[in-house]
């Protein structure tokens, strides 16, 4: 039981660092640590395959992407003296606290029902059999989604093509003037 408490306090601490840290690169590395501690929690809870995938995909690829973008977009050069309108902050933090209270209340009411363990066969084999027989279609659609993401990212980040179009249009306008 004490391991659970220690792990959740660690995750909460890193999550707080993500939200309340001044520099964004510090927030990115704090997010990396949160994802790693969540992977350890997955292992503690028993889902071994998901913790390995979490380390490899979330901590190993997504967090790298964040740090790369941080390095690409240098934020420190902007003077961050944006005025914080106090009213907005108070209202939002109040509503989030209310949401947190409601969630805690809901969990508190049926904690007995929730913390009973009746997952019989937790082995990876059961998980994978279901993944490729019952959930065959979502798996294929997920690859389609990834294909769409690949095409979208390349088109969005490569701007040479648009400039070429603009130049061609300019040439045409001169020609037929």
């Amino acid at each position, binding site marked *: 039981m004490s391991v659970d408490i220690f792990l*959740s306090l660690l995750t*909460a601490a890193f999550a707080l660092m993500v939200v309340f840290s001044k520099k964004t690169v510090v927030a990115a590395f704090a997010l990396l640590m949160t994802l790693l501690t969540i992977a350890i929690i997955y292992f503690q809870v028993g889902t071994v395959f998901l913790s390995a995938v979490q380390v490899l995909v979330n901590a190993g*690829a997504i967090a790298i992407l964040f740090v790369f973008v941080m390095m690409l977009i240098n934020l420190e050069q902007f003077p961050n003296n944006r005025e914080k309108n106090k009213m907005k902050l108070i209202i*939002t933090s109040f509503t989030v606290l209310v949401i*947190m209270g409601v969630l805690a209340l809901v969990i508190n009411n049926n904690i007995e029902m929730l913390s009973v363990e009746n997952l019989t066969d937790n082995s990876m084999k059961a998980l994978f059999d279901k993944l490729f027989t019952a959930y065959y279609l979502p798996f294929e659609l997920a690859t389609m989604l990834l294909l769409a993401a690949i095409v979208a*990212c390349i088109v969005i980040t490569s701007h040479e093509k648009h400039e070429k179009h603009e130049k061609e249009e300019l040439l045409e306008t001169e020609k037929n003037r």
Partner: protein
Amino acid sequence: MSIYYYLSAFLFCLGLLGITFKKDLISMLLCLELMLGGVALLFILFSKATGFIDAQLMVIFMMIISACEVAIGLSLIIALYRKKQTIYTNDIKILTE
């Protein structure tokens, strides 16, 4: 085991708070990733509690979708940064050129 429910709720609300507090787009995306982590943890806890193993598959698909979402989100931020040289939300208020 039961403390993880509170942890996932806390992560979700912290992500929500972060999105409203943060000034630039990348930090908002970071906090969004935090919320996704909280919800994925909840899926796993429910799959343990109810014995319904498909919830763990949902986490796998959530990872695929969160990877695509982060990829496209950051590409948009790069394109925005290239056009407007800033990603502070206060400066990006005008819809026209």
